[in-house]
């Protein structure tokens, strides 16, 4: 029978010499992963900015199809979720586990809200035939030659970002589960910190996506 680990004890994997080594290795691995994420999104950002400078009229026309209010609300939602995520670690460090779990639930709720608004945006566009690339079938008002280019970028960048939001929600759900199991506590908050780093990166990318996609002049 496995004994329930107390939040006061933290597990040390056998291949590490000390807690310090284990924790710095974890943080290092997380930052290396975030670096690869920056490179992946970076390629799309570079493509977007360069094509924008080549075909400014297509991007200007494309942005008129986006509702900046929805994008703005989503920005606020993600910023608040980043705040609550940071708070969950803060409370875990202070051994206020109830507040920690509450912060995680709020973060999860914000992620859900973001995805709902994203779903509304996507379904509205797909309803009128705005699809990426060769599937683009919109012929209505405001259509310009090559508009599919803008929406290929739009769907790729927001889609990749949205999949990261979903992955982040999964990770937060896992952290919440661990917190309910009492496996996260003031001495063992590192897993929460790694999940937090990922979630903040998702927020960071949206900070750039929002003005780039929604506020094009």
């Amino acid at each position, binding site marked *: 029978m496995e004994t329930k680990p107390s939040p006061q004890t933290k597990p040390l994997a056998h291949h590490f010499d000390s807690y*310090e080594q284990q*924790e*710095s290795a974890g*943080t*290092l691995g997380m*930052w*290396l992963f*975030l*670096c*690869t*994420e*920056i*490179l992946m999104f*970076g*390629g799309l*950002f*570079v493509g977007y*900015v*360069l094509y*924008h400078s*080549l075909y400014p009229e297509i991007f200007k026309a494309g942005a008129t199809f986006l509702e*900046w209010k929805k994008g*703005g609300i989503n*920005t*606020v939602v993600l*910023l*608040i979720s*980043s*705040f609550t*995520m*940071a*708070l969950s670690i*803060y409370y875990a*460090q*202070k051994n206020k586990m109830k507040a920690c779990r509450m912060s995680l639930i709020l973060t999860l709720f914000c992620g859900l809200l973001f995805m709902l608004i994203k779903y509304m945006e996507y379904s509205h566009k797909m309803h009128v035939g705005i699809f990426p690339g060769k599937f683009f079938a919109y012929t209505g008002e405001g259509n310009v030659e090559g508009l599919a280019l803008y929406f290929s970028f739009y769907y790729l960048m927001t889609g990749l970002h949205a999949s990261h939001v979903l992955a982040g929600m999964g990770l937060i759900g896992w952290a919440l589960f661990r917190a309910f199991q009492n496996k996260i506590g003031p001495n063992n908050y590192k897993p929460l*910190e790694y999940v*937090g*780093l990922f979630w*903040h*990166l998702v*927020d*960071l990318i949206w*900070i*750039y996506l*929002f*003005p*780039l996609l929604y*506020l094009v*002049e």
Partner: protein
Amino acid sequence: MSEHHTVPFKTYLSVLIILLFLTVITVAVAQIDFGAWNTFIAMFIASVKGALVLLYFMHLKYEDRLYWVIFGSGVFFVVLLFFLTKIDIITRVLEVNTL
């Protein structure tokens, strides 16, 4: 090494308020036409917001310098990719087929 550093609640709250304020600024600035500076200004404000998230929410301010270098190297190569591709595009010679 990374001494268990607890950032005060007040810091998190002020960072959130500044971030929300900067979002309002981003939207407000987008209504004004600065011509060629539009993208630059939007990216500048986004970078200030990004720096706040990195420094305070992601604790870079309190962490080992090593993580700065790792993250910075990713950003560096994205910027390098941008400039090399940009140089390629602007130095292309337009050739018109005479046939």
